[in-house]
C-alpha cells in the first residue's frame, strides 16, 4: 500500500477479524475451554434443579442463556488479553486503521464465537433436558444471533476497560451482568417460545426488544470505543 493512505472501515474490520479468527483457529485453546465450561454449566443446572425433566425442559431457555453468559465472560476477557500480552494493542493503534474497526472486529468475533458455542449446546440440551425445538431452526438462529450480539457489544467495550484495570476478573461481570439483564430476559423468553411453540405470537415483541438493545449498544460502543483505547 502507498504510504499515507488509510484503509476503509469495512476492509480493516475484515482484516482484523481474519487475524483474530486465525489466532483463534491456530490455538483453539479458548474455544475448547469455552465449550467444556458451557457444557459443565448446563450439567450443573440439571444437578442443582434435580432430575426433573419437565422442569428442566421448561427452563431450558434460561439455562442456555446463563451458560452462554458465563462462558461469554471468559471469551470476552480473553479477547483483549491476546492484545495485551505483547503490547499488540499499541501496534493496532499505530496502524492506519480506524479505532472503531477494532471495536467492530472484536465484537463481531465475539458474536461469532458465542453463536458457534450456542449451536454446539443445543444438541446437548436436547439430550440432557429432553427439550424439543418446536419452531424450527430459523427462529432459533435469529434468537441466538440477536442474543449473542447483545452480549458482545457492551461486553467488548467493558472487556477493553477491564483488561487494563486491577481486579479485571471481578470487574467485567460486575459491569456487564446488570447492564445486559434486559437482553438476557428477552433472549431467554424468546428461546423458551422457540422451544415450546408460540401460540400467542409474542416472539416478535421480544425480537423488537433485542433489536432495540443491539441498536443502542452497538451504536454506543462504536461511538465511544476510540476513547476507551486511546492513550
Amino acid at each position, binding site marked *: 500500500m502507498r504510504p499515507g493512505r488509510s484503509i476503509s472501515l469495512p476492509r480493516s474490520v475484515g482484516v482484523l477479524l481474519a487475524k483474530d479468527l486465525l489466532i483463534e483457529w491456530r490455538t483453539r485453546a479458548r474455544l475448547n475451554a469455552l465449550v467444556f465450561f458451557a457444557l459443565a454449566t448446563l450439567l450443573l443446572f440439571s444437578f442443582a434443579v434435580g432430575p426433573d425433566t419437565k422442569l428442566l425442559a421448561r427452563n431450558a431457555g434460561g439455562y442456555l442463556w446463563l451458560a452462554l453468559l458465563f462462558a461469554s465472560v471468559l471469551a470476552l476477557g480473553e479477547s483483549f488479553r491476546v492484545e495485551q500480552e505483547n503490547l499488540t494493542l499499541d501496534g493496532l493503534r499505530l496502524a492506519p486503521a480506524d479505532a472503531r474497526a477494532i471495536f467492530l472486529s472484536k465484537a463481531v468475533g465475539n458474536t461469532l464465537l458465542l453463536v458457534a458455542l450456542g449451536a454446539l449446546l443445543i444438541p446437548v440440551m436436547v439430550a440432557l433436558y429432553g427439550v424439543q425445538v418446536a419452531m424450527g431452526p430459523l427462529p432459533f438462529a435469529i434468537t441466538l444471533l440477536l442474543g449473542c450480539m447483545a452480549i458482545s457489544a457492551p461486553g467488548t467495550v467493558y472487556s477493553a476497560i477491564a483488561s487494563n*484495570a486491577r481486579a479485571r476478573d471481578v470487574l467485567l461481570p460486575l459491569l456487564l451482568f446488570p447492564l445486559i439483564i434486559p437482553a438476557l430476559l428477552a433472549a431467554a423468553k424468546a428461546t423458551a417460545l422457540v422451544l415450546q411453540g408460540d401460540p400467542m405470537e409474542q416472539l416478535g415483541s421480544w425480537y423488537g426488544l433485542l433489536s432495540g438493545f443491539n441498536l443502542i449498544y452497538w451504536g454506543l460502543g462504536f461511538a465511544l470505543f476510540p476513547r476507551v483505547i486511546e492513550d
Partner: protein
Amino acid sequence: MNTVLQLVSTTAALVSVALGIYLGVKWAPVGSRFNARPALYAMTGAAVALLALGSWMGLVWTPPEREMGHVYRIIYVHVPAMWMAMLALVLNFGCCIAYLFKASWKTDALAEAAAEVGLLFGTYGLVLGSIWGKPTWGVYWDWDPRLTAMAIMLVTYVGYTALRRFVEDPEKRAVWSSVVGIISGINMPIVWKSVQWWRSLHQVQSTPKTVDPDMVLALRVNAWASLILLVLFLLHRYRIALATREAEVALPSALPTDTRANPSEVV
C-alpha cells in the same frame, strides 16, 4: 397560608443551594485560605429547618390517605429520595458526556460525587419503598418492573463506583468511567417510564400533579429539604474528590525521577 409556606420553603431552598454552590466552589475552592464552612453550616441549618417543618407537615398536618391510612406518609421521604437519586444520576450522565468533550478534573470529580450520592439516595429510597411495601402489598419485595429496573440501575452504578476504585491511573479512570457512566445512564429513562409502560403493582410517579392537593405542600417542602441535603452531600464529596485528584496528579513529580526514563543518568 399554603402559598406563603410554599414561597418561604422554595426561597429558602434555592437561596441556600445557590449560596452554597457559590461560596463552596467559586469563592472558597479546596486549598484556598478562605473558609467555606459558614456556607456549608448555613445550608445544613436550612436543611434541618425545612426537614423539621416537612416532617411535622407530613406526619401531623396532612390528612391520612383514604385507603392506606397513615401508612402512605412514607411518600414524603421516599418520593423526594428517588427524585434526588435521579437528579444526581442525570448530573453524573451530563458530567460523563462533558468530560469526553472537554477533559477537566472538576468535571471528573463532580461525576464521581454525583454517582456516589445518587447511589446513596437511590438505595435509601429503595429501602424506604420496601418498608412501605410490607404493610401495603404484603411483601417487602415484588418483582415489579419499576422495582426491578431501579435495582438493576443501582447495581450498574455499583459497578461504576467499583471501576473507579480499580483503576489507578487518574486520566484513564476519568475516561473509562465516563464511558461506563454514559452506557449506564441509558437505563434512566427506562426506570422513569417503567410505571407507565408496564402497568403493574407500583403506582404511577407521585408528582405534585398526581397527588391530592392537600398533600402537595408537604411533599414540596420535603423535596426542597432533600435538595439542600443533596447539594450539601455533593459539595462535600466533590471537594473530597477534587482534593484526592490533586494529590494523585501532583504525586509523580514529588517522587524521585525514574532513571529508566532518562538513560543519561544511568551509571
